[in-house]
């Protein structure tokens, strides 16, 4: 799966989980860019992403994500 496809799927997750159709995330997006994206909703986003891609992130991986792009890299490495 290409990075752009992963990002498109993640955009749908972010909109659904944060209940805001206006949200558009890019590889450089962080929680600081989106008002609804706080520490609790971050876990919602992580769990929804895990379910969609049928993967698991460990706590160290979650803590190290600096932006959406790093999350995409990790997803890509896990799904091959």
């Amino acid at each position: 799966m290409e990075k752009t496809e992963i990002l498109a799927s993640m955009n749908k997750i972010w909109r659904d989980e944060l209940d805001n159709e206006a949200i558009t995330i890019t590889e450089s997006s962080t929680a600081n860019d989106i008002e609804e994206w706080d520490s609790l909703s971050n876990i919602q986003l992580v769990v929804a992403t895990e379910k969609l891609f049928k993967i698991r992130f460990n706590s160290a991986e979650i803590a190290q994500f600096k932006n959406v792009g790093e999350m995409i890299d990790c997803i890509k490495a896990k799904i091959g």
Partner: protein
Amino acid sequence: MLQLHHIGVLAKDMEEAIESYKGIFSASSVSEIIYISSQEVNVCFVKIQSEIFIELVQPTSEASPVQKLIKKGFTYYHNGYTVQHFDREIELLEKKNYKLLSVFNSEAFNNRRCAFLMSPVMHLVELIETA
């Protein structure tokens, strides 16, 4: 082993919530209000059974995630469990795909370590290290 200690519920108005619980339980079952700095919340424990409490949680900051939950209309917040082997229990829960949110020292428990974890079905759990 997890021992239920409290059910955390959100209180928009702490005084009002305390008065409401005093109407069900005795006034002596209500603790003092304790400020937890790392979480930016005030909490108050209502003893409902021997060693089992309702924890009333009121945000003290507009930026608090707890404040956002209240604005969304949530009233239930988390279940709190005491654990003897704090680090080991976190490890065990992580193996069951619980996500560690934070570890902090809580003024509500004599500055003992506490941790918030989110379950795979998005239920929030607090672990409290026993003395």
